[in-house]
């Protein structure tokens, strides 16, 4: 049998169902891997080892008695440390919440728990999922397992690192401007920002209410489909939660992409935020894969990236200030410098500016939906490969133009998958964007791509304290 640490959820659940792998063995392997390599990665901020072994034992007994409840029964998972967990510290990576132990679980923990998942712990993030990387917060930032001198992006940093390193096969991140897709991209895994309202935000510390999305991250798109099938669905206690039927995402992975029309926003990639030669070559090669599978490629025109950024940042700074106003007024020294810089001006933005930005959001979202009248999917790179982990100038927030935020503004589902490796060994990435609530087509395309390319066969190599 393959090393349990590098089994996908799909593979591990098959072995568990056949009683060839026990949830306890799998959980022990994950905890051992964590113990062996996480001092190099800082991917976990809290480990719930004892609880995980208890949950794994209970899962094992139930599976032996009556079979598995589903694909996540007995599978370890971890949550970004802004997902509230009853009785388990939830810090948001902030000194303000260093000792915060919630009384109740977030919706995602409830659903994953009901599915029989095994909570391994909480993963490192940026402070309140917004400011970072920082060294003046409650724990040091995570590192990238493909090269620990490099960053794993943010803000679901620890989640991306933990999955790629084989510490844990499943995790939940959040994405307000790219924070699921960017760590997935630079850590070489798969991660989806679903449609706004598809996955409940209840019990997740807010970054910016109007642009926050919860979504799964895992080694393969198939695993992401398994997880999304569990966490998606209406939650009456989240006012933004959508009443949309949830299809069987895993069953939708037919491998069939022939006949799909894929739009590419070439102006973004060539004029507004030009891709590096390596990223562009990998992207063009990915399009060739889809052509060979029978898809059509065409150019698509979308509004300027800057307009998406301006609308989102105006809204986000205002909402962030509102969320943190009491602490900013009374104990600003407890924020990390990065987050404080990013949000302190939010109090100086007028209500009129906020509402004008919300009007702009509506127009931008309409234009993106109109583009989907011509194409089935939009594809573009997710990010440049990760650079060195170092202090980022605070004003990078205002100067950087990325390829992810537009779809937080528009609300569309967007998946990141690995589409190769740079010459320095760091992962490259492809972003696949779909129509509202059509995660099934997005996942189908991502899965077909992964199964047509060799990138899922390579894992990062880390030196272990003891041979795992």
């Amino acid at each position: 049998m393959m090393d349990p640490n590098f089994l996908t959820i799909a593979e591990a659940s098959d072995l568990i169902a056949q009683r060839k792998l026990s949830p306890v063995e799998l959980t022990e392997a994950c905890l051992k891997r964590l113990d062996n390599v996480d001092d190099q990665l800082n991917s976990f901020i809290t480990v719930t080892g004892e609880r995980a072994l208890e949950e794994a034992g209970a899962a094992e007994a139930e599976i032996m008695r009556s079979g598995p409840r589903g694909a996540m029964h007995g599978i370890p998972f971890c949550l970004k440390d802004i997902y509230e967990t009853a009785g388990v510290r939830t810090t948001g990576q902030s000194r303000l919440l260093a000792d915060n132990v919630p009384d109740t679980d977030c919706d995602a923990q409830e659903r994953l728990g009901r599915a029989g998942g095994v909570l391994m712990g909480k993963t490192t993030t940026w402070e309140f999922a917004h400011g970072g990387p920082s060294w003046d917060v409650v724990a040091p930032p995570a590192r990238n397992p493909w090269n620990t001198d490099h960053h794993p992006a943010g803000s679901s940093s620890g989640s991306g690192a933990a999955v790629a390193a084989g510490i844990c096969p499943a995790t939940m991140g959040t994405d307000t401007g790219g924070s699921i897709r960017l760590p997935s991209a630079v850590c070489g895994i798969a991660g989806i920002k679903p449609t706004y309202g598809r996955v409940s935000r209840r019990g997740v510390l807010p970054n910016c209410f109007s642009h926050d999305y919860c979504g799964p991250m895992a080694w393969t798109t198939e695993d992401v489909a398994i997880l999304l099938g569990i966490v998606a669905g209406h939650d009456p206690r989240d006012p933004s939660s959508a009443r949309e039927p949830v299809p069987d995402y895993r069953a939708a992975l037919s491998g069939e992409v022939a006949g799909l029309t894929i739009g590419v926003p070439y102006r973004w990639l060539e004029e507004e935020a030009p891709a590096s030669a390596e990223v562009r070559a990998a992207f063009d090669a990915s399009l060739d894969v889809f052509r060979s599978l029978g898809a059509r490629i065409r150019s698509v025109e979308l509004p300027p990236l800057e307009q998406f950024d301006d609308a989102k940042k105006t809204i986000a700074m205002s909402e962030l200030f509102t969320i943190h106003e009491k602490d900013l007024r009374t104990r600003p020294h407890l924020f990390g410098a990065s987050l404080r810089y990013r949000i302190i001006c939010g109090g100086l933005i007028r209500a009129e500016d906020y509402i004008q930005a919300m009007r702009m959001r509506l127009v931008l979202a309409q234009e993106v939906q109109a583009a989907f009248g011509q194409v089935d999917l939009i594809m573009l790179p997710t990010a440049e490969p990760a650079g060195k982990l170092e202090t980022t100038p605070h004003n990078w927030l205002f100067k950087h133009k990325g390829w992810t935020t537009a779809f937080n503004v528009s609300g569309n589902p967007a998946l990141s998958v690995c589409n190769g490796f740079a010459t320095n060994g760091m992962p490259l990435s492809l972003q696949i964007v779909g129509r509202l609530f059509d995660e099934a087509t997005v996942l189908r395309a991502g899965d077909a791509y992964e199964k047509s390319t060799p990138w899922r066969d390579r894992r990062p190599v880390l030196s272990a304290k003891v041979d795992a």
Partner: protein
Amino acid sequence: MALEPIDREELVILAKNAGLNLPEEYFPDLVDAYGHVQEMLARLHRGRARGDEPAHVFVPKTFLPAGEQPA
């Protein structure tokens, strides 16, 4: 179009209006960040028609207690 940088005294007033009584050490960050915010706000499209809606709509049934929401 280059914007005129805000006068420090004006910024102190804006910060005070926002309820911020910041220590001196945070002011350089506030000045720097606000410069970027000014540029961003200046780019926001204005002059929309009176009836142009923002991207938020209040759906009162969403806020009914969980047990009273329509299935």
